[in-house]
């Protein structure tokens, strides 16, 4: 059986080490926070916060306290606040150990596309380009194929790039792959998924 959303998030959480400062994207990456266990992880919200807490209880929402997805959140005893220039200074400066984010396409050379589909409504890249260019390690969590069954792990991206050669590791519903010289290397397959099945669902070169 391929992994479901929660299993992918749980697998992504294994990438995080005690003491890391991490930025989680919207969607499945947000679920990663549920699986960090006893590890001491500090979450960054790029609108200006380290130490992001869970959603507030009803009636305790604070309009001055939101995450980068504009959702109401809470603070923790460790929380610090800062301005956007400082926030992206720590991102661009490589202080954030890892970003876990979704993608539309990843190429075998680590190119990432996740912000724009030509001809469709373009909302903007937000902080995605800064994050993938700046953080220590970029981990993509996404389905292996799109709605049409086509591989999202490609020889070359067809969509406009968010970053060039920026992806380190890809976690999909079928398994885990690393970007290495010459292509992608299979790290592991999801329980019950064979290496042949993973290869068959992948357009990118597997080395």
């Amino acid at each position, binding site marked *: 059986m391929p992994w479901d959303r929660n299993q992918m998030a749980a697998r992504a959480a294994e990438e995080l080490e005690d003491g890391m400062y991490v930025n989680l994207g919207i969607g499945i990456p947000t679920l990663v926070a549920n699986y960090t266990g006893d590890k001491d992880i500090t979450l960054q919200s790029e609108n200006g916060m380290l130490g992001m807490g869970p*959603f507030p209880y009803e009636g305790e929402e604070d309009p001055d306290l939101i995450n980068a997805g504009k959702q109401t959140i809470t603070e923790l005893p460790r929380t610090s606040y800062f301005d956007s220039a400082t*926030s992206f200074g720590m991102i*661009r400066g490589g202080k954030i150990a890892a970003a876990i984010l979704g993608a539309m396409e990843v190429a075998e050379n680590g190119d990432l596309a996740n912000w724009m589909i030509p001809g469709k409504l373009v909302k903007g890249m937000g*902080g995605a*380009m*800064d994050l993938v260019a*700046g953080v220590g390690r970029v981990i993509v969590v996404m389905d292996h194929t799109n709605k049409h069954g086509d591989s999202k792990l490609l020889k070359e991206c067809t969509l406009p790039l968010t970053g060039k050669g920026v992806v380190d590791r890809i976690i999909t519903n079928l398994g885990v792959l690393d970007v290495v010289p010459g292509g992608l290397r299979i790290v592991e397959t999801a329980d019950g998924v064979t290496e042949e099945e993973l290869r068959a669902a992948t357009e990118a070169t597997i080395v």
Partner: protein
Amino acid sequence: MNKVYGSAKEALDGVLFDGMLIAAGGFGLCGIPELLLQAIKEAGTKDLTFASNNAGVDDFGIGILLQTRQVKKMLSSYVGENAEFMRQYLSGELELEFNPQGTLAERMRAGGCGIPGFYTKTGVGTVIAEGKEIKVFDGEEYILERGIFADLSIVKAWKADDTGNLVFRKTARNFNPPAAMCGKICVAEVEEIVPRGSLDPDCIHLPGIYVHRIVQGTHEKRIEQRTTRKREDV
């Protein structure tokens, strides 16, 4: 010198002109200068260019100036929440220059620090790099981005003293300090003006040197995505 004004309208008196570049603080609807935006709408100033991370929603934030066609161009990183914005953009009425969020923040900060340009690896190999100088440092490519020097900065803070020292609250700080820094004139709206000496000098987020005019007012502080969790049964 008196920096305290009685209303947003008075605080903007004499600083608005058609075709000007305004840097605005805020992230989404959090920490936006909502009173000053309303006053700009009432002043009717036209052909405005805004450096602002977002464009508000249809009836709040910069969105209210889109309804009145006062905005010519936006420098933003994300504009997804605004139907009127999209309509004007797709019909060619509104110009849009996407800036990666950190690049936009740093362009403001740099402008405020007298830095006309800086190199960043954000956007290398993407459409953002098109037409920009590329320079190699230590074997890695960087692109040249320009500092923003705005005609006017409008920001929202939590508290100010009468000298313009500002304190922000939680994530409502966001773009407000860099936006404040990059304008020739900065007008700040605050929830409370407190007596000189009552703010801890060690805890000032933005020194009053950057702030020329202050106005106190009541803020709606609208929530864009109200998200909660259930209380576990005791």
